[in-house]
């Protein structure tokens, strides 16, 4: 009888425990014999499996490790790295060509930018703003890098801190087009940014509001369209607190839902809020229950999305890096795993396919930098269907003596990547636009069967200069990206090879 009870209890316990079908490995990146603090690491990986691990070294410069073909090399100093007076925040993103873009701060002073392509850095260059703490980066679909940061201005009334965003177009070597997006409040800092499927920039920051003698803080969301015009404004954190809404950050999942998290110093906890842009409904503010935090400096947290799921990585009350998962049905967070082996100060997370990469530094001095890899935690990314290959447009003119008509003959071939991935194509969609028109002007002109590799666009005007794109739709209804043709001749307009356009190799200071 006792044995039966024991077995029942054991079975019940086993069933109640969450199944852990992922592996956590922790790697110390910086050497053990260093005497100076190594801090604030960030990590990113491109689609070729190359990783960059960048941190502030003991000499107060930007150092990095580079991972390729299963091997780490480094550490090394990024060329042109300044010696920072103070350094908290940095961010790193990867564009569609696999180029890494890195921005870090010399806190309360300057921002610096460099990119890493084909195994080499460009020299770091100063971003020309008077910087205030924190920054965030995001990538638009055309590989424009969006930088969100804060800057301060000195006026007779005192110091004003505002949030700005700047853009770095794909072939530019620095950020420009800065726009102050702050409304009528002061002391606005702690910025992060994410880009939605329409390339709108969703900027979150710690907004400071003054009412009488009381300054309150809120987590503010501003959504900007591609022209950097505000299209949405929201106090996400709800009631204003006479305390800091620190380090807010934002992410989108694969379904386009948004989640914002922040640390609230007054309540000594992390909070989040879930938003469904489709229904335009915000969930209630909910705690990410990690226990009462130490007020300082435990504030680093990052919300991430793996497929349609949201996760959160932060430093908890025990100063351990922990991973939580969000349940949108119950609007609650569930502990998933501990990701650090020792007490941590800073953490940063990057989703790479099925894996989660978390860079963090230990709080014990001399501080060291670590990398935690959570393997297989996310569902494998859906295999993305690719557009057709070798699209050729032949401009033809059929005529009798008295009349005639222009038409364009499109021919294409199946994309070998789709064949390799055994993606079943269910249809081809043909799009057309005038060459000079922007990407929003693509118009679908027909849908063809999966086994059709030619199309006649009849009766096009004689003076037209159309360009075409042919996308593939897979058996699940997913459509390949609509890409901008680059061909110059009207007669032949191949789709571009989306691989690695070269950025200018020299950088002017």
């Amino acid at each position, binding site marked *: 009888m006792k044995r039966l009870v024991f077995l029942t209890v054991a079975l019940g316990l086993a069933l109640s425990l969450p199944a852990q079908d992922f592996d956590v490995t922790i790697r110390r990146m910086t050497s053990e014999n260093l005497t100076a603090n190594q801090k604030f690491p960030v990590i990113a990986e491109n689609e070729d499996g190359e990783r960059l691990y960048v941190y502030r070294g003991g000499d107060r410069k930007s150092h990095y490790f580079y991972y390729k073909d299963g091997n780490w090399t480094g550490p090394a100093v990024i060329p042109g790295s300044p010696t920072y007076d103070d350094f908290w925040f940095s961010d790193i993103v990867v564009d569609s060509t696999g180029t890494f873009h890195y921005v870090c701060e010399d806190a309360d002073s300057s921002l610096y930018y460099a990119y890493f392509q084909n195994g080499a850095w460009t020299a770091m260059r100063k971003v020309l703003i008077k910087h205030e703490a924190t920054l965030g980066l995001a990538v638009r679909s055309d590989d424009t890098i969006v930088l969100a940061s804060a800057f301060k201005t000195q006026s007779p009334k005192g110091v004003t801190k505002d949030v700005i965003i700047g853009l770095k177009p794909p072939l530019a070597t620095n950020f420009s087009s800065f726009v102050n997006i702050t409304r009528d409040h002061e002391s606005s800092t702690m910025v992060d940014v994410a880009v939605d499927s329409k390339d709108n920039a969703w900027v979150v920051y710690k907004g400071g509001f003054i009412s009488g003698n009381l300054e309150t803080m809120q987590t503010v969301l501003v959504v900007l369209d591609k022209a950097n015009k505000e299209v949405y404004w929201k106090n996400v954190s709800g009631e204003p607190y006479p305390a800091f809404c620190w380090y807010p950050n934002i992410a989108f999942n694969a379904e386009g839902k948004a989640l914002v998290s922040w640390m609230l110093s007054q309540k000594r906890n992390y909070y989040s809020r879930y938003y469904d842009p489709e229904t335009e409904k915000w969930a209630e503010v909910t705690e990410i229950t990690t226990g009462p935090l130490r007020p300082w400096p435990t504030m680093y947290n990052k919300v991430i999305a793996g497929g349609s799921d949201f996760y959160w990585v932060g430093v908890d009350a025990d100063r351990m890096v922990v991973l939580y998962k969000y349940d949108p049905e119950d609007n609650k967070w569930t502990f998933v795993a501990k990701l650090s082996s020792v007490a941590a100060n800073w953490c940063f997370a990057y989703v790479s396919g099925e894996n989660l990469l978390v860079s963090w530094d230990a709080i014990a001095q001399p501080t060291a930098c670590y990398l935690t890899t959570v393997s297989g935690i996310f569902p494998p990314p859906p295999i993305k269907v690719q557009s057709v290959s070798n699209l050729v447009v032949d401009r*033809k*003119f*059929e*005529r*009798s*003596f*008295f*009349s*005639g*008509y222009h038409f364009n003959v499109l021919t294409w071939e199946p994309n070998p990547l789709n064949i390799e991935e055994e993606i079943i194509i269910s249809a081809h969609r043909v799009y057309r636009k005038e060459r000079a028109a922007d990407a929003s002007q693509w118009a679908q002109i027909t849908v063809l069967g999966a086994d059709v590799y030619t199309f006649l666009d*009849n*009766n096009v005007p004689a003076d037209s200069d159309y360009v075409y794109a042919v996308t593939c739709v897979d058996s699940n209804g997913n459509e390949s990206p609509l890409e901008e043709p680059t061909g110059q001749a009207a007669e032949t307009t191949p789709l571009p090879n989306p691989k690695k356009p070269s950025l200018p190799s020299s950088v002017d200071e």
Partner: protein
Amino acid sequence: MKHQLDLTKLTRHAVPAFLIVLLAAPLLAVGGPASGQEETPAPETKPSQPRFRLGAYFEGWQLNDKSLTSFFGHSQKNLGGIEASIHTKFNVDVWVSYRKYADETMTPVYENIDKFEMTATSLGLIYRPIVWKMLEPFVGAGAEFYSYEETIVGETQLRPTTGSASGLHAQFGVYINATKFLSGKIFVRLNSVKDKLEQALPDGPSELDLGGKEFGIGLTFRF
């Protein structure tokens, strides 16, 4: 050096002058002698002329319209025609002719057969200033009436086109009388026929120049 009449240079302005000569010639031929000149006695018996002529001819036809001839690929088409005339008086005949110009090519993309056909009817006067036993040179002028059609054979988006045009002609030549009833004929005919198109041609022009020159030989039965 022997000067030749370049018929291709006979422009629209030349046609009215040609007609004046044509109309004046019978008067000069049948008019009385100039005053002061000695009258010649009229022949006692003037051989009667056949009243009717029916004939067929074979000719080369060169159209002026370069767009058309280059599209269809032939600067000259050889074809047959029929003609009839009736003698009135003063060696002047009323003359009518019918022939059909046809050409074809392939459309550039789908290679459908593209047919162009033009029926031409001529109505005019012929004056034979000298009537010898064997030779009867003639000049003539009159009107041209053309009806044309382009059709494309097979499945195509190209629509057929029809049209008509009229203009003037001038001609000269000679009848060669072989027997009492049978004559040969050599002729040159110059046409001036233009048609304004409602819709410009694909390569630009909005006027069709169907004028040109015809030259050929024929066989005429006269009675």
